[in-house]
């Protein structure tokens, strides 16, 4: 028999209550994480010394232009990839592999196309055989209702709209009560209207029951709208350029997007990204050129 994959990563996280939102406290720390790809003389360094903390009850947003290594960092936090050096811990315990305590909502849709919405959402508890059939039904139905998908329980992903798929994926993760939610550019590719709705939707979910959340994006407006703490990444090899505490009132409202405080944060963040872009420009490498291009997209918004 093939060996079983550790499900809880040895953190002893065992939750008796079938929950509907995130589980108990989880604090992730990232210390001196380096990561490169390729063989020895030609190693391409993607992450160079990343340090930050994901606090419980805080929505941390990681922003940086596309291609700067955000996804690499998420993969390391999720345990799909190991850092070359440095340490990633969850509540003090080093991360050794993927586990249900840190769930990822992926950039591209990862709903199983051959399962209905119901089967997709209930997948986690079903494969771990945690709940009785009845409990599972009640729990799944309640979550589907919460995201307005109960009428679509028996539909396949190909029959859902982009926004519905994102919501289904969100509850597929939440049903497992993860300690940490890792959102890797989850709203990329949605149209502007749906995206705004999903942002509002997501921020309400978080505000009702805040847990440890990391939200990765390359959109500055989305970043500040959602964030308690904004982590700005530098050009490759990526480091954490600056951490901004976003002290805007919750619940967040879209009217806020025109407030003075909001614009102040936006200006500050853009300035840092601009500096990074200028540095990259001066270096004149292809990767730097990509950075400049990506920056101009952010700033142009």
């Amino acid at each position, binding site marked *: *028999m*093939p*060996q*079983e*994959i550790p*499900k809880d990563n040895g953190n002893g996280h065992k939750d008796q*209550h079938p*929950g*509907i*939102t995130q589980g108990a406290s989880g604090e992730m720390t990232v210390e001196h994480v380096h990561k490169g790809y390729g063989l020895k003389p030609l190693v391409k360094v993607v992450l160079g010394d990343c340090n930050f903390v994901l606090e419980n009850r805080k929505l941390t947003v990681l922003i940086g232009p596309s291609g700067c290594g955000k996804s690499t960092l998420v993969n390391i936090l*999720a*345990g*799909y990839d190991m850092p070359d050096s440095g340490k990633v811990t969850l509540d003090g315990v080093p991360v050794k592999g*993927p*586990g*249900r305590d*840190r*769930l*990822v909502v*992926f950039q*591209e849709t*990862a709903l*199983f*196309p*051959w*399962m209905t919405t119901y089967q997709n959402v209930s*997948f*986690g508890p079903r*494969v*771990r055989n945690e709940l009785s059939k009845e409990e599972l039904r009640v729990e799944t139905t*309640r979550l589907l*209702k*919460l*995201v*307005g*998908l109960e*009428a*679509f329980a028996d539909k*396949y*992903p*190909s*029959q859902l*709209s982009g*926004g*519905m798929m994102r919501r289904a994926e969100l509850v*597929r993760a939440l049903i*497992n009560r993860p300690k940490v939610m890792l959102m890797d550019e989850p709203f990329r590719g949605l149209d502007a209207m749906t995206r705004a*709705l999903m942002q*509002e*939707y997501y921020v*309400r*979910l978080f505000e*009702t*029951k805040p847990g440890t959340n990391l939200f990765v994006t390359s959109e500055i407006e989305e970043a500040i709208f959602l964030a308690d703490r904004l982590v700005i990444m530098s050009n490759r090899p990526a480091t954490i350029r600056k951490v901004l505490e976003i002290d805007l009132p919750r*619940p967040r409202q879209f009217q806020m997007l025109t407030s003075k405080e909001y614009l102040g944060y936006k200006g500050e963040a853009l300035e840092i990204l601009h500096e990074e872009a200028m540095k990259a420009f001066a270096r004149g490498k292809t990767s730097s050129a990509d950075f400049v291009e990506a920056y101009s997209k952010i700033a142009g918004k």
Partner: protein
Amino acid sequence: MRPELNESVEAQSLAEQGMQAASNVEEMPSLSWEMLLSRVKHALGTSAPYLALIGLVGSLLVWWLLSEVIKAPLWEKVPGPVAVASEWFSRHPTFGMSIFTADYYMHIWKSCWRVLQAFTLATVLGVPLGLFMGWSKVFKDYSFPVFETLRPIPMLSWVPLAILMFPGREASVIYVTFLGAFFATTLNTLLGVESIDEVYFRAARCLGSSQRQIFFRIILPGALPFIFTGLQISIGYSWFCLVAGEMIAGEFGLGYLIWNAYMTVEYPVLVIAMITLGFLGWFSSALVRLAGRRLMQWQVREIA
């Protein structure tokens, strides 16, 4: 007590607002006679069935002109449609082979039964083998080079060896037919597993699936579209290899009938057997396609 999220009026109302419009989606009607009738009506409203008819009648006409009217070069010895039909649909056929003779159905039955056995065996062995090769890198490293060496050997070259290997003629014909189907099924299944996006494995693993669950819930359904493409190809190969096997080693069956008709100068029978094979091949692929659609509702609905 934890504050439960579903008590949040705000979140709920938001969900309702955004999603109300979407939930008024049309329900799929269940399969019924009514639906079938409307489908037929719809099909008759398009040009497709008429074009198909023109194509069929046109090619019969060309065949008739070439073989029976003009008697074109190369076509002198080819029996024309009139000669074939007058044998095929005759109550008292000259060569004893028509839709009213028991012999005709006996040959059809023999061939179908051989294909069914061989195809079933190839599917039962080929699909799991392909799945295992895709699932375990180590197993693939062992088996793939052997597989790839055996696969390109033309099936016909197996016939003499098959006759040597197996005691009866029946077994050797089925063996050759099986080989034809087996390689196509296995290779397509393997490609199917390899076509599954890595993101599904990641999602399944972090949600706590065991390797066994990944096999049955991700690999098997994920590879299904490719498996059925493979089965479509392999049912075609089965007929191909069957006829080759029957010509050389058969005592009954349509392949045997073709060869026998050639040897005994019963040319209309030869053509009857060929056309019969054409229909059987078409019919069997349609069955495989139908089974595939049944098993992959999630794909059918995508198109609907």
